[in-house]
C-alpha cells in the first residue's frame, strides 16, 4: 500500500505530510527546551548567588563546538541542495560530513564532561551544574539522534534514491529541519550557559 502525500502536498494543508509532521514535532521540542530554559531562568533569578558560566565551564571548547555545529548545519543543507541538483554522490558526502561533525561535537562534549567528573563536579555539586548537565545532556542526546538518522540516510537509506528520488530528497530535507533545530537550540544554550 502506498502511503499518501509523502511527496505531493495535501490539498487542505498545502504541505506533504512529512513536512507538517516534522514541524509539529519541532513545535513540541520548542516547548520541551523552552520549559527547561524557563527553569534555568527561574533557578538563576531565585538563587542568592549564581556563578558566571565562563568561570565554571570551558569557553574555548564550547566555542569550537559552536563552530562545528554551525558548519554541520551548512553541510546538511548542502546535502539537500546536491540532491536537488541530482548529485547523489555529493549529497551522501555532505551527509557523512554532517555525521562526522556531529561526532566531533560529541567527542568534545565527552572531554568537557570528563574534566568535570575528574574534578568531582557532578550534577549534585551545584544548581548551576545540575541545570548545565540537564540542558547540555538533553541537547547531546538530540545530537546523537541526528547522527543515527543521518547515518541511515547516508548509508542504507540512500538506496531509495534509485526508486523514489523525490521521497528520498524530502527525507533528507526533513532530517535537515531537525538538525538545524538542534543547531538553533545550541545557539541559545551557548551564551546562556557559558558566557553569562
Amino acid at each position, binding site marked *: 500500500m502506498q502511503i499518501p502525500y509523502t511527496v505531493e502536498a495535501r490539498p487542505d494543508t498545502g504541505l506533504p505530510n512529512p513536512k507538517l509532521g516534522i514541524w509539529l514535532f519541532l513545535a513540541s521540542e520548542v*516547548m520541551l527546551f523552552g520549559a527547561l530554559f524557563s527553569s534555568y531562568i527561574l533557578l538563576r533569578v531565585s538563587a542568592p548567588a549564581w556563578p558566571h558560566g565562563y568561570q565554571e565551564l570551558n569557553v574555548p571548547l564550547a566555542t569550537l563546538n559552536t563552530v562545528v555545529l554551525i558548519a554541520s548545519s551548512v553541510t546538511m543543507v548542502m546535502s539537500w541542495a546536491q540532491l536537488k541538483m541530482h548529485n547523489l554522490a555529493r549529497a551522501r558526502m555532505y551527509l557523512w560530513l554532517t555525521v562526522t561533525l556531529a561526532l566531533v561535537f560529541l567527542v568534545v562534549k565527552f572531554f568537557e564532561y570528563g574534566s568535570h567528573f575528574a574534578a568531582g563536579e557532578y550534577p549534585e555539586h551545584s544548581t548551576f551544574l545540575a541545570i548545565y548537565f540537564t540542558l547540555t545532556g538533553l541537547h547531546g542526546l538530540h545530537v546523537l539522534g541526528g547522527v543515527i538518522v543521518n547515518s541511515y540516510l547516508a548509508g542504507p537509506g540512500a538506496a531509495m534514491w534509485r526508486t523514489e528520488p523525490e521521497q528520498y530528497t524530502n527525507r533528507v530535507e526533513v532530517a535537515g529541519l531537525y538538525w538545524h533545530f538542534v543547531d538553533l537550540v545550541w545557539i541559545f544554550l551557548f551564551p546562556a550557559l557559558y558566557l553569562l
Partner: protein
Amino acid sequence: MSGSGGEDIKHHVKVYKAVFTGLMVATVITVGVSYMRLAVLLAVTVAMIVATVKGSLVAAYFMHLKSEKPAIFWLLMLTASFWVLLMFIPVLMHLDSFEIQAQR
C-alpha cells in the same frame, strides 16, 4: 522547501555560504563581548540579541522558513505565543517572591 526549482539551487548555495559567514561573525561577536565583562543585564541583552539574530538566520535560510507555506508560519506563531508565556513564568514567580518578602 516550497517553490525551489533546480535552477534556483545554485543561488541558494551562495546564500548558504553567506549565511555561514554571518553566523561565524556573530559567534566571534558573542564570544568577544563576553570577554568585555559587561554588567549582567547588559551582557544578557547583548548575548540574547546576537543569539536571536543567529537563530533567525538559521530558521529563515537553512530551515527555509523565508519561503515556507502559511500553515507552518501559523503553527510556529502559536508555538511562539506559548513559548513567550513559558518565559514569563519565572518573571512572574520572581515578582511574586519580591511581594512576599515586602509583606514580611
